[in-house]
């Protein structure tokens, strides 16, 4: 051994041997989940607890409850209302946001009131809206649409922050109003708007479940949740977590796809700036 004992050990990052990608990636994806499921199955075989059914039982409950016509009669309508409510939230939020964000006067006038409305925890409005609108689809859609506040406030902020030089450029070239909106304001504000939409999606999902669990009416996810509770169908209750997790995952994936397209330029710009 050399006597250069005091020199710091320099680690060469490239020198590590790594498994080839096609082995490594699936391993990373599935290792931990499979370990968890495996351990759970093991424990529930030797120390069964009705409240923590074996993963297999949960899987059975999942297919028994959801992979049949219930899906069409109960889950799809819920998802449909979610989609409609969210669309409303986005459309109203962006439209109103553009109008308010473009006028300093309107902004200063309305922003405090909006900030207050946004602060109200969305679930609080559910009982109020039920009292006002009954328990039908309208109520549920309106409830989901109250997730518009993040979209609205983010749009206002995004529109306000449009670069002054870009605004002047658009003016100097006499861009007509509609072109300024489509080619300047909306694209410039799109990062903030997308961030607002992401927040709205999370809230909308919670609201969908709450609005349906509150008054469990057949034809909704919430109805089933109530039934399971009343019947103490534990495996089914766990299967709900799986179902809603999948729905949440689907929404997240769809959003990421949309973001990737809409904000490709933004990512490129930020990378170029960081370089």
């Amino acid at each position, binding site marked *: 051994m050399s006597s250069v004992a005091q020199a710091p050990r*320099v680690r060469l990052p490239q020198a590590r041997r790594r498994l080839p990608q096609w082995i490594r990636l699936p391993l990373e994806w599935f290792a931990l989940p499979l370990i968890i499921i495996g351990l759970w199955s093991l424990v529930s075989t030797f120390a069964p607890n009705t409240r923590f059914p074996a993963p297999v039982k949960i899987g059975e409950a999942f297919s028994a409850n959801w992979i049949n016509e219930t899906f069409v009669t109960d889950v799809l309508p819920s998802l449909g209302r979610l989609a409609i409510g969210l669309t409303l939230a986005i459309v109203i939020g962006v439209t109103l946001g553009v109008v308010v964000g473009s006028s300093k006067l309107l902004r200063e006038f309305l922003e405090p009131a909006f900030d*207050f409305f946004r*602060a109200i*925890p969305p679930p609080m409005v559910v*009982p109020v809206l039920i009292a*006002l609108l009954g328990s039908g689809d309208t109520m549920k859609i309106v409830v989901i649409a109250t997730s518009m506040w993040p979209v609205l406030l983010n749009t206002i902020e995004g529109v306000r922050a449009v670069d002054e030089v870009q605004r002047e450029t658009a003016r100097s070239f006499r861009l007509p109003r509609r072109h300024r909106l489509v080619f300047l304001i909306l694209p410039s504000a799109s990062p903030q708007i997308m961030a607002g939409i992401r927040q709205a999606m999370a809230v909308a999902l919670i609201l969908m479940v*709450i609005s349906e669990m509150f008054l469990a009416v057949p034809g909704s996810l919430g109805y089933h949740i109530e039934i399971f509770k009343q019947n103490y169908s534990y495996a089914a209750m766990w299967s709900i977590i799986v179902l809603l*997790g999948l729905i949440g995952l689907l929404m*997240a994936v769809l959003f990421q796809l949309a973001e990737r397209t809409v904000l490709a330029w933004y990512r490129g710009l930020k990378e170029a700036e960081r370089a």
Partner: protein
Amino acid sequence: MAVNPTLQRLRPLLLGTSGVLAFLGIWEIASRLNWVNAKYVPPATETLARLGGFLSNPHYWDMVGNTLLTWAWGMSMATVAGIVLGTVIGLSSFLRRATRSTIDFLRPIPSVAIIPVAVVLLGPNRGSSLVIVFFACFFVVLIQVLYGVADVDPVALDTQRSFGVGRIRRFFHLVFPTALPYLMTGIRLAATVAMILTVTGELLIGTPGIGRLLQERGNAADYAGMYATVVTAGLLALAINVTVRFIERRVLSWHQSVRGEVLV
């Protein structure tokens, strides 16, 4: 044409206040003139009066206190767990990759889905509420801490490590300062999420708090009371938001980070 500079500075405040007043005014008129069904939407003044009445009602403060308690407990547990796990996972590239899929699947699960299981396991009380508050906030904080730790300059880390700088000192002098802004963002977001889930728990599980108060008022057909409770919720959430932002600014002011806001 010189504009009074004091007026200029006060303009946002004046406009904002008149905006709120205008809203209250429209509410009052709409109710009194029966543009909306006055039975279900009592006038603003009546609501505010009811709110005033609440302020001297111990039951009201009991409920508010319960909400704050649930909120605070859930937030603290989630923050601590998020920091610990976030740091441990974030500092190890292996752990980061291994847990990625699990986190990405668990994260979008809406906390509400866990309510039935929580109630069945822990009963319809604060414990169940805390479970759902914790679940939601934990992931918020965890993700932010992971971002923060990922932002640590790997060259600096390696350099410190190879020069024998101890783990603890490495953490405090390098990892913690880098991740701090992200952590503050996480806490700010988690504060809002915690409030949402606390109220949700009160509505669906029946834990004491303003959510339950809302239902009580609803059952008594006390619409003014319902709206007063909603206003309370808003004010509470605003107060929390303002406080958290204040703390965030203070904590980060002596932090020489020139980092821009991470769009979340």
